[in-house]
């Protein structure tokens, strides 16, 4: 498997029409190996024979429920699993999770939602294995390159080192590049705590981070403040 699109996927749902549609959607999105099953029994057989790299599971199945099927699969393998739920009630169980599901989608869904969520979890699990070791995780912002593995920022002026907290903050922003990341999530990532009491600390760290990655820290181009909410790492226009 060179990319996540080569992974073998198993879709389990009791509605044949949904299976056909999901297969079409996933095929169009680039996933070529999509297997389907309409009951627990069939799902078990395929799971055993084909060893899929990812599973999409409906919760209500004619001969059992998705929760217990997932737990069964979990004993054998650690592959990512995505739940499809048709009941709001399931949401509470899924939120409470601890079930080991990677994500869930409520029916009815939009095709791109399924594709985005599925690619997301597949990438999270398989990307580290797929990327050749020579290619380190790098963030390029104009003339600045951030190497997350070494924690070094390469600029025209030379090299700067990121502190542990700066590294954690920048990595969090990078994971969600282009989107607002709330101060609460940043604080959770760097200090594993609630924001209350860290407001100024966070601001100071962001300022230092800007000094390292921005050309003009007082007029940032990449690390932007979204007033009242948090920060955003703008996507590089050249990439």
């Amino acid at each position, binding site marked *: 498997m060179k990319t996540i699109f080569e992974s073998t996927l198993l879709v389990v749902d009791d*509605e044949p*029409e*949904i299976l056909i*549609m*999901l297969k*079409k*959607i996933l095929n*169009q999105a680039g996933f070529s190996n999509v297997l389907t099953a309409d009951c627990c029994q069939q799902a078990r057989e395929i799971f055993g024979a084909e060893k899929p790299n990812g599973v999409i599971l409906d919760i209500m199945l004619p001969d059992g429920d998705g929760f217990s099927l997932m737990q069964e699969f979990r004993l054998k393998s650690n592959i990512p699993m995505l739940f499809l739920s*048709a*009941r*709001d*009630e399931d*949401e*509470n169980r899924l*939120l409470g999770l601890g079930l080991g599901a990677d994500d869930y989608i*409520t*029916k*009815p*869904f*939009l*095709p*791109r939602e399924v594709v985005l969520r599925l690619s997301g979890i597949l990438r999270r699990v398989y990307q580290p294995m797929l990327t050749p070791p020579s290619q380190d995780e790098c963030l390029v912002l104009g003339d600045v390159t951030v190497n997350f593995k070494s924690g070094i920022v390469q600029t025209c002026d030379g090299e700067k080192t990121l502190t542990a907290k700066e590294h954690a903050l920048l990595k969090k922003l990078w994971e*969600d590049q282009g*989107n*607002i*990341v*709330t*101060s*609460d*999530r940043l604080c959770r990532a760097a200090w594993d705590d*609630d*924001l*209350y*009491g860290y*407001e100024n600390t966070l601001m100071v760290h962001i300022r230092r981070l800007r000094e390292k990655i921005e050309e003009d820290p007082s007029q940032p181009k990449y690390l932007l403040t*979204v*007033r*009242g*909410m*948090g920060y955003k790492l703008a996507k590089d226009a050249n990439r």
Partner: protein
Amino acid sequence: MKSLRKIIARSILLTATISLLLVVVNIIFTANWAMKNPSVTHSKYDVGEIADGLANIDGTYSLNETATAQFNAQYSWAMLIGQDGNVVWSKNLPADVPLIYTLTDIATFTRWYLNDYPVSVWESPDGLIVLGEPKGSIWKYPITSTEATISQVPSYLGGFLILNLGAALILALLLGLWLYRKLKPLYEGITALQKKETILLPTKGVTGEVARILNETSVVLKEQGKRLADRDKTRTEWIAGVSHDIRTPLSMVMGYSSQLETNPNLLPAEQDQAKIIREQSQRIKTLVADLNIASKLEYEMQPLHLSKISPAAMLRSISADYINNGLSDPYSISLKATEDSNGLSLLCDEALVHRAVTNLIDNSIRHNGSGCIIDVSVKKHPDGCIIKISDDGKGYPPEVLVNSDEPVFLENHGLGLIIVRRIMKLHGGKATFENPSSGGCSVSLIFNQ
């Protein structure tokens, strides 16, 4: 229990008052009767006066006019017994009255009766004047008492009154206590009934019948409550079932229309049509979800999953999600959370409060087609916090601004606002809707904790 004690205390007081009143009424009545009834004292006219009216003029006796009138008014006969025991004068003397008297006779009739005639006597210079009344008209009985006894009469009377009062009070107290013992289980039963508990009171004794009826009522109420709950549950389950079943076909509609929307082989107009189908099916999705959650909230089938959260963090996350999910240009959302609001914590069902806030933001977006600025804020409030969502759009129609506690269905607002009100009610808070004078609309979610 307090009110039962009050009832008992009042009944004791009432009983005592009634007893006292009876004593007073009796005394007044007796006194009145004694004063008004002349025969009791038997002293309408003085025997002495009549006696004085008997004059002896040269051996012939005659009653003067006044005395005669007085005599006629009260007595039927009269006689004068001389010093020798012989009757020397008489008037209307009945035949069965003897004309000669011994000392014994005189001593006897002065104390008792003369041949059953009640008589009154008076001494005169010529002997003893005897005035007689008809037989059976007067009850006559001489009372003899020691001086000591007579002198103690007033204190006896006082003691008698006090004793009466004391007895009445003690009886009232005992009666009250008895009543209290009997009523207590009934009172407890009714209190339990109010709390919809099943009661099983002992059905023996004076209050047995009432207790039995209460027991039966509790069973009836319980059954009724269960039937109502069953009906609500059935309705909620039915709605949940329908909303579940509609999701599969809706998935197909949304899935394929969304595919068509981006199908390059279609004409732009056709793609637009596919887009409309996709958008409308998304509306149905929201409607179904709203209907489902509204019915659960209505019948309190949605258990609250309470946890302590930071409202400021939740609002930041919601606002950021709107922007990250591409809230487009004519709309903008801004958040005002002061630094101290970061320290606020709220015990709530996070998913439901999240739902209430997004319903309000969605509402602002949906009802202001030409765009609006949405402001979200959170601030401390004496007993909790206030989350405020406002916009500079066209404001709420008057029916929304009523701010009644009972959620009303508003035609153009679907279930969104009903859900918001229900959620706030479940959290012991409330939602107030207003159109500020500066324009637009504003909703305050007030949490009291």
